[in-house]
């Protein structure tokens, strides 16, 4: 019980109470703000899942930003070319997995420094998407909102959770499954063992390299989902630098959430809320501040969050270290 009374959880408590208070004042606006927040939060949470998947098996992935950017671009570009958003979605997931595999090749097979490997992916992403970007392209449509019958009628929670597009639901499903998989399945136990103490796994007959390859590639696919959600469901367009640092914010959320999918989801929700509230304050003209300040809010929060949680959390012990079998 004691572990629930952390600073982290009191944060969540404050947000929940504040929301409840505002809801009692004005139900419809609060509902719409929180609903927006949820949509803001999902890509961040998914991007944090990419980090969790990788780091839990011992691979540091700072290329999440690049993965999001490239897959968001692929989703948009392919949808636009083929006039089929499903093909765009498929392309996005494929590109994400490919970038995951690239990271795996560099960090597992070539035993490269993983920070450099991730940086390569980020640079590649910026270059590639800027080069291939053509102004004025459009996609036929975004993924349509699908309201889940019955559930959508629940006050507050209905509009917040059950009035979104298909990729949103799929994303939530992925996050919850990842949590279960990581802590309840054989795959999860082995993955965590590989991230904490790879030689233990190796001596127990678990192939470290294979598991790292698989996990980093799946993580890439999740990154692809996040990218597709951004360009095909949330925004419906693509510009240069479209992801605006979400991949890096995700790393902070991963740490804040202690490498736990649900923790990172909560952290992402906290971020989404802050942004949505700030937007609302501006729209209502409650506060007169330049938009730039609203835009930088997530980044400032990233810094604050990291400063609060740094040093108190423990990362998977073997992250960032290539596994050398012969020295086991």
């Amino acid at each position, binding site marked *: 019980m004691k572990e629930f009374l952390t600073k982290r959880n009191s944060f969540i408590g404050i947000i929940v109470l504040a929301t409840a208070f505002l809801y009692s004042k004005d139900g419809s606006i609060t509902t719409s703000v929180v609903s927006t927040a949820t949509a803001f939060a999902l890509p961040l949470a998914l991007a944090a899942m990419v980090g969790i998947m990788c780091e839990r098996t011992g691979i540091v992935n700072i290329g999440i930003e690049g993965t999001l950017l490239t897959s968001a671009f692929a989703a948009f570009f392919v949808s636009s070319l083929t006039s089929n958003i499903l093909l765009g979605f498929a392309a996005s997931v494929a590109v994400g997995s490919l970038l995951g595999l690239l990271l795996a090749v560099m960090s597992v097979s070539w035993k490269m420094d993983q920070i450099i490997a991730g940086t390569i992916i980020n640079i590649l992403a910026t270059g590639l998407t800027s080069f291939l970007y053509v102004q004025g392209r459009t996609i036929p449509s975004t993924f349509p909102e699908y309201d889940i019958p019955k559930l959508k009628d629940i006050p507050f929670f209905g509009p917040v959770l059950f009035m979104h597009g298909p990729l949103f639901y799929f994303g939530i499903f992925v996050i919850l499954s990842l949590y279960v998989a990581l802590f*309840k*399945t054989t*795959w999860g*136990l082995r993955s965590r063992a590989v991230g*904490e*103490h790879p030689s233990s796994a190796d001596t*127990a*007959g*678990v192939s470290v390299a294979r598991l790292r390859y698989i996990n980093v590639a799946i993580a890439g696919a999740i990154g692809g989902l996040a990218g597709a959600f951004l360009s095909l469901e949330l925004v419906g367009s693509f510009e240069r630098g479209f992801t605006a640092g979400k991949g890096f914010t995700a790393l902070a959320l991963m740490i804040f959430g202690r490498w736990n999918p649900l923790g990172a989801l909560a952290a992402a929700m906290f971020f989404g809320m802050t942004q949505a509230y700030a937007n609302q304050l501006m729209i209502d003209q409650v506060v007169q501040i330049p938009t730039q300040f609203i835009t930088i809010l997530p980044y400032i929060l990233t810094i604050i969050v990291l400063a609060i949680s740094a040093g108190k959390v423990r990362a998977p012990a073997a992250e960032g270290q290539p596994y050398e*079998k012969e020295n086991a």
Partner: protein
Amino acid sequence: MSDLLEITGLTKQFPGVLANDNISLSVKSGEVVALLGENGAGKSTLVKTVFGLIKPDKGEIKIMGKVMEPGDTAGVIAAGVGMVHQHFQLVPVMSVTENIILGDEPRKAFFIDRKSARQQVIALSEKYGLEVDPDAIIEDLPVGMQQRVEILKALRKDVNLLILDEPTAVLTPLEIDELLVVIRNLAKSGVGVVLITHKLHEVMAVADRVLVLRGGKAIGFTSPKETDEAGLAQMMVGRSVVLRVDKTPANPGKPALEVKGLQVLDDRKLLSVKGVDLVVHKGEILGVAGVEGNGQREMVEAICGMRHRLAGQVLVDGVATKDMHPHAVHASGVSHIPEDREKHGLVASYSIADNLVLNQFDREPFAKGWVRNISQVNKNADAVVEQFDIRTPSAQNLASSLSGGNKQKVVVARELSEDLKVLVAAQPTRGVDVGSIEFIHNQLIAARDRGAAVLLVSAELDEVLSLSDRIAVMSGGKIVAIVDSKDADRNYIGRLMAGMKA
């Protein structure tokens, strides 16, 4: 009946070292075979190859008559081989149960069946009489208990062949005796055992046959019936070795190192040194005996300025030393042979020559002002490599290329290179072969005879008994007794170490 394990012509070349040179060995059911050899003789390479952790260049491994695929650990495990590794292969943040089931988890559909996993662990622990708490987290357990988990992990499948790579290095005398009984019982029940150890009396006590390796080559088989400890030592080193330490009585002078009321926290912020008072005089060796994890490590680190002293003082020649300032402590005349040579003793990515001057690289003759004098560094290195018999092709090779025993020699050589007032030696011969142990012991005694105060901390009771002039027994973060080594009784100290009232 065919042999359990049959190795023929096994050869493995590492960069610069022929680790295994055409080695053949067979192990029968119910037999305990000890592998004996100096550090770097190729024992670990041999058993790791058998377990599929290293791919051999040449040679064949048959387990129960079946040729094994090189590098197929899962296949070897399936064939009924269990291995207790030299370095614990346990995930520190996971529970005992999780560690034991890792790699072959009982499951229901996709999920781990935790209930039956837990029951398996309890049953296993009862079967072999090795008590463990299935829910404890590994990093909270003392090393002896971790070793038990490691052994249970190896025994989980009905093993036909059990490989133990230096299983006793971190155990107390009592735990070692228990382990040897377990090994004997396993052999009686038909299990073949391959045991690597540096401790000759363990070999004498438990082995049926002994294979001696030297420089990657099999020197030959012997058995405890045909030889004695001195004979074994001679076979492994290739010359006769004095196993007993020869020393003259100490001639203690004034107090050189005084520790007063020292209290220190461990990594988990728990009080692990609970008020220690010690005095080490010039020209004497004070040995600290104790089961590991009773505050010795924290005490040593606090003395050397590497860990915050919560309370208390450390005085050198009557002058208080600065807390948390290793450089200042060192400058006041304290040399330190750290317990963890890889982490605190050496810079693995520096050359041996540079490592040998880490404590004085910024002073004459190794530097002039800001400029290093590389030729002096190299000259010094060549001399020390020769004098300390550090086995390396060149002093310019990286420290990481050395075997464990030779790394330790580098640390010892460096720490003894200066005029020192106090030498703090923590586990100075851990994982070091008999030839090097003899050498290091002689160096410690020579330092004492030159007038240094030596604080020796060792988990090896025999080492403490043979080297020390006085013996302090540490238990539960306190010094529970200080006895003169003349009056020291092995059993009495053993009981104190175990926390019993003597």
